[in-house]
């Protein structure tokens, strides 16, 4: 087996692990974390495709590589927005739970800043 195939299999496992964490972890921060872990697997898959497309004197196909760079920046922007939304939810309701009943229960004693 070549190193590229090895990293391809790694990418598949990372996507699976991230998806599992995204479903199972109840805390929103852990969901964000799992989603980023999943994203790492997806980017790695693109990296494997880029490596296999090596040619024209380059170590990898630059188009998927550029895609990953763009993707990393957008993923950061999305993560930052998600984290700020979560912090605002916590500030407003005193809980970070995404459950409707948890929010309704806390609504009565809403924490004002």
């Amino acid at each position, binding site marked *: 087996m070549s190193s590229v195939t090895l990293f391809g299999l790694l990418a598949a496992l990372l996507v699976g692990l991230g998806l599992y964490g995204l479903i199972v972890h*109840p805390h929103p*921060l852990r969901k964000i974390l799992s989603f980023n872990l999943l994203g790492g697997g997806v980017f790695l898959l693109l990296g494997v495709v880029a*490596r296999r497309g090596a040619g024209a004197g380059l170590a990898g196909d630059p188009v998927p590589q550029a895609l990953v760079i763009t993707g990393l920046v957008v993923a950061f922007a999305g993560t930052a927005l998600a984290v700020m939304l979560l912090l605002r939810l916590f500030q407003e309701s005193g809980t970070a739970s995404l459950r409707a009943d948890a929010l309704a229960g806390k609504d009565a004693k809403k924490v004002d800043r």
Partner: protein
Amino acid sequence: MSWAFTFDVALTALVLGVAIWTLSLRENFGAVVAFAVYGLTLTLVWLRLGAPDVALTEAAIGSGLTGALLLAAAARLRSTEAAIAAESPGGGVRVAAAVLSAIVAGGIVLAVLALPVPAPSLAPNAVADLAATGLGNAVTGVLMAYRAADTLLEKVVVLIAVIAVWSLADSRVWGGRPGPAHRAEPDGALAFLARRLPPLGIVAGVYIAWVGADMPGGAFPGGTIIAAMWLLTIMAGVKDTPPISSRGLRLALTVGPAVFLAVGLCGFFIADAFLAYPVAYAKPLIVLVEVGMVLTIAVSLGLLMAGPPERSGK
């Protein structure tokens, strides 16, 4: 088995181990630390895959900046953990999630094993016109010329994310300063670090952005380092966050996309299409766009980290 392959096997085992740690740790804080390490191990994988530009971006944004953002959030949300842990799904949901994840991962494994030989590649197309742009780094060539529209839109996405984060502010503090006020002992250790390290860091950031034209590097990792140095001085209390109503701040936020767009529109008249560079001026124009982008990336990433305004700007 060659030494390089042995290294790759060890690296793969390490990435998998760290990923499982990230998911299995009970406390959020430890999980976030493990996630930052996960980004670091991925950086090594990117180098092994012959993608040093991606490795630089992953080290800067994927590991460093995301890690710091989540660390701060985990610390602020610590009190919520115990209550939410009680909401953990039961065994049935867990088994179903595991089966679903295994199916998805298995499908990707099959896809990886069935990748076509010879692999399709856009590398010859990307390299073909590289000489005309005067760039030596093919990835920068793709980002700035071959697929320039993607890069322009990405800048706009980041800008929209900044506006979305700002819109979470309480209306009483609109236009104020993001984040808490950090007070610091002027002679303290942290303030010392925040005065000594940024000069080195800013030189390194500008260097990495500058060599991106010909060697691995570029505006993203360069801008991220500058953003990190800026935030370091803020966290140490050496400098305060500027109020978001500041004119200079808003100028810095928009200068990158604005220059990019202006150069792109000029393409209609002096070249033959939107975002087309006239061959004689391609390199200077690309460098001009990159300079604007480094500034905008540094400021917008810094502001995304800092969050919505929390206190009045006076």
